[in-house]
């Protein structure tokens, strides 16, 4: 089959699970006939019926709440929130219930649900359509947060998320939905959760990032390679819980760490990565940790959104500074 984009891979994974697991259902706003505003569920309702692929009323808190109810009673709902800017009404249900149901009933009930949402900026979208607030979900015990950064990882990690016996918030970097294509075998093979993916090996500095920022970060690494700097690029992939062994091993090797994310800096996931290294890898550090992130401001409307985001230049400079320290 032809190479696919990241969003094609999402659709493939959804179709695979709908096909092979009768307890899987998809629900959300415009996921039916319309196939989702980004077409992630295109064709699925026609193929699996309106019972398995449900258009819901416009209420995100409801979408999360009924997903929890379904999951507790043996279904595996995969809910779509149209944009991350509209995910906040789900937080009460995700934090107070989804991440707790197993614990508070001592395993009697559980919550195998997935909450999918496109996130991030860079597509000239309207107000409230470009946010990155993964850190809010990463702070919820019992909730996994998974972010793919390639078609293959989108396919394998989404399969893993749907099959995971616990709730997963699956955030899709919409800016790279169609950025490039890759061969992805539609074989139902999941990829492991809770582990980082090393996108590029290197010796001089460790770069930790996730989502769309893996592209800027890899470009920065390419550029620096020309001047003989060898960067190791790690895709966090599962943003919570974090696979910090991989990060620590890398920093042990390189002695330098730069973290790149699109979300606002303060209390972003990058802070947790930095904190872990400052606790467990401090003696390996040859230079201060650096974060290249979105600023602590509202994501600007699109005339200025690129000024908000980490750019290849900003990343390259941060790496250079680290190397000079």
């Amino acid at each position, binding site marked *: 089959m032809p190479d696919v984009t990241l969003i094609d891979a999402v659709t493939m994974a959804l179709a695979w699970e709908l096909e092979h697991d009768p307890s899987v259902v998809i629900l959300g706003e415009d996921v039916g006939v319309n196939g989702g505003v980004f077409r992630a569920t295109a064709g699925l309702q026609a193929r699996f019926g309106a019972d*398995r692929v449900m258009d819901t*009323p416009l*209420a995100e808190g*409801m979408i999360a*709440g009924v997903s929890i109810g*379904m999951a507790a009673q043996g279904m595996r709902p995969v809910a779509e929130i149209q944009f991350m800017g509209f995910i906040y009404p789900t937080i009460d249900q995700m934090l107070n219930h989804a991440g707790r149901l197993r614990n*508070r009933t001592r395993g009697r009930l559980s919550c195998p649900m997935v909450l999918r949402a496109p996130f991030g900026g860079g597509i000239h979208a309207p107000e409230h359509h470009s946010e990155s607030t993964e850190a809010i979900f990463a702070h919820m015990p019992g909730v996994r947060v998974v972010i793919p950064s390639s078609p293959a990882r989108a396919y394998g990690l989404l399969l893993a998320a749907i099959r995971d016996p616990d709730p997963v918030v699956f955030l899709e970097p919409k800016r790279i939905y169609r950025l490039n294509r890759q061969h992805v075998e539609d074989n139902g093979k999941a990829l492991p959760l*809770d582990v980082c993916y090393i996108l590029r090996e290197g010796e001089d500095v460790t770069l930790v990032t996730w989502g769309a920022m893996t592209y800027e970060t890899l470009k920065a690494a390419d550029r620096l390679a020309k001047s003989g700097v060898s960067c190791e690029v790690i895709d966090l992939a599962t943003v919570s819980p974090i696979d910090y062994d991989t990060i620590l091993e890398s920093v042990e090797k390189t002695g330098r760490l730069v973290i790149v994310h699109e979300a606002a800096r303060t209390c972003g996931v990058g802070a947790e990565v930095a904190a872990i290294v400052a606790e467990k890898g401090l003696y390996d550090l040859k230079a201060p940790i650096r974060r290249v992130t979105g600023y602590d401001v509202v994501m600007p409307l699109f005339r200025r959104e690129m000024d908000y985001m980490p750019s290849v230049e900003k990343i390259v400079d941060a790496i250079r500074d680290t190397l000079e320290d």
Partner: protein
Amino acid sequence: METIADFAIQYSQFLDPEGNASADVPDLARDVDELVKMYRVMTETRVFDTKAVNLQRTGKLGTYASCLGHEATHVGMGAAMREEDVFAPSYREYGAMFWRGVQMHEVLLYWGGDERGSDFEKPRHDFPFCVPIATQCLHAAGAAMAFQLRGEPRCALSSNGDGGTSEGAFYEAINIAGARRLPMVFMVVNNKWAISVPIELQTATKTLAQKAVAAGIPGIQVDGNDVIAVRHWVERALARARKGDGPTLIEAVTYRLSDHTTADDASRYRKKEEVEAARRLEPMIRLRKYLTALGAWDDEKEHRLLEEAAAKVDQAVQRYLNIPKAPVEHMFDYMYAELPLALEEQREHAIRYADREGNGHA
């Protein structure tokens, strides 16, 4: 202007406060065994409730939410459900839970600060207590969606209070239930107060049953102190839902005769007179009078029931008090199906400190 839609809200009471039955009573009113069974559970619930409040006062229980005055509403809804149905309670529907098989010591464990209280031996599929107001309505709707999708003849029933009807989650639940004709019933237990906030400040509606109109589903109001009315209409609504005809909202009008919880002092905001007046309408007396009039009850039976209930409650209390703390690591061991590597160090840390304080297990 032309009228394009109209709606009426009906009220039902079969047993008046004096225990007189109205002409149109349903068969249930003649089923003495069932009535006695409900009276028994209502009595056990009240004895349990009194005991639980005392346990809290004497430091043997944490904050506890009393159900005093709600016995008919709670037992009525519990008795109307089938075992395979799913109940999504708030936090004081003990009468319904006991009827469904939850054990008294489990309820005590919960309010005693132990998660194992929500690990009901039965019914395994019911939702646990739900403190975040009205969020459980959506869980019930989700359960009903699961039954509908799998074609199972099962229903979900959620229960929330008058205050709970002000939460968006309540409305979102009744709306999706209407839109998808979900097999479920929404019980709204109107006990007139949300802690210190009277129903008049909660909403401008004349009834809470009429909230159903906003979801395009039937809504009725029943006397929540009349166990026959509650059970009858909930049974009817469940039968309707099971047939595939969709959800119903039932407002049960009762009164919270107790403080909101043991942490509350209702005398700060409620008039004695109001409580006294409400006490005269409470659900036990009228049922006993009715059963007595039917010749199905007498002082001696009452006396024996009270003794048996007291014994049952004492046993439950003993069982509760004898259950040692769960191991400290349990706070980790039920967070995920499998503990993520990232948490193992924290788990060991917790065990180390608990053990050091000789507090790891008991």
